[in-house]
């Protein structure tokens, strides 16, 4: 309903909630309801949290809103590690405790280019301690090097299902002499509810990165 009703009439205001909006709305009303998460818009890509960090040991997402979302989407921009040549690790927590054992599986294809020479290959494991979201390839911190990509995560909140990911990355490597793109998938083969995600370097800290976690409503 409009904030200022005409002709001095003001009736009883209905309760507004997601899936139950009643009245005539002007743009200001809609913006206010969106801000309050009360505006009905099915299928939203909803930002849960963005973390832009520098000089940290890890990035953690501790509010996954798995009661709302079956599928999550995560993006990473401008990831640079403090230590040269280390992979990005991702671990999932069950009941608050991170799974650090070598129980994760992944399979990924890398597509590389170095000084005009192409390099393609596969990397895989059925027993690693990282749930891959951004490739299990070494990252570097030279001039203009950065790691970028996205990841879809499935079933995090379903205690009866395994948690899966599919991902793609694009990066420069070794002082931008090399280029890598990677696509792949990963699984935590344990039927459990995941409640936290941690991203960190296999050694050292994260010099800088911007990582966003979204939920895909009604997927």
């Amino acid at each position, binding site marked *: 309903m409009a904030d200022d009703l005409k002709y001095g009439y003001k009736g009883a205001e209905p309760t507004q909630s997601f899936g139950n909006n009643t009245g005539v709305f002007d743009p200001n009303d809609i913006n206010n309801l969106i801000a309050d998460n009360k505006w009905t818009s*099915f299928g*939203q890509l909803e930002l849960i949290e963005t973390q832009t960090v520098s000089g940290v040991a890890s990035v953690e997402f501790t509010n996954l809103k798995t009661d709302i979302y079956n599928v999550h989407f995560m993006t990473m921009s401008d990831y640079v590690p403090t230590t040269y040549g280390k992979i990005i690790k991702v671990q999932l927590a069950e009941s608050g405790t991170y799974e650090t054992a070598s129980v994760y*599986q992944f399979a990924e294809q890398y597509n590389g280019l170095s000084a005009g020479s192409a390099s393609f290959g596969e990397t895989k494991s059925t027993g690693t301690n990282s749930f891959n979201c951004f490739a299990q390839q070494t990252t570097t911190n030279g001039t203009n090097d950065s790691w970028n990509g996205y990841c879809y995560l499935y079933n995090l909140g379903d205690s009866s299902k395994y948690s899966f990911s599919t991902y793609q990355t694009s990066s420069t490597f070794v002082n931008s002499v090399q280029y890598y793109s990677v696509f792949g998938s990963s699984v935590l083969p344990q039927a459990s509810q995941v409640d936290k995600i941690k991203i960190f370097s296999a050694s050292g800290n994260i010099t800088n990165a911007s990582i966003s976690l979204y939920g895909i409503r009604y997927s």
Partner: protein
Amino acid sequence: MAGQLIQVATETVTSAVASVTLTGIDSDDVYMLAFNQVIGSSGNNNLEMRVTESGTANSTSNYDFAHKKLDATGSFSNQSTTNNAEFQLNIQVGNDSAFFEENEGIVYIYNANNSSEYTFITTETVFLNPFSGGLNGSQGGAVFTSASAVDGLNIFFSSGNIASGTFTLYKVV
């Protein structure tokens, strides 16, 4: 609302059906299909897809696809066919939910509504292999080589029914 997804259609299968059809593509925007916990009624089949025109699946031999099968326990392989009767999203899918063999995946759809352009898709899927129990995935692309107005998608297994799963079509705006 830039950079948002708008849900166009969704279907959750709880009892076996031969296929799922989602329509509602009516603009030149990019569209996205998310499928979650999809499993067939019989094993060792491929998850496949056709486009719909005016709500009817097109089964002509106008589908070209190429994707890489990712396998944590075996060799990766290239999967490709031209002039096929459907898109192939992945291969050798199991049907036992007790062994967590459900499919998860994302498909982006390009140029579908444009009647003067071919319809392109990119795909990424993941599931557990019914034979090895290991992680399988597939990523690639495909094209429907007919300049026509596509208004939806028809998803099915190469044999048998879809036993369960959720399919949701979004418009990317």
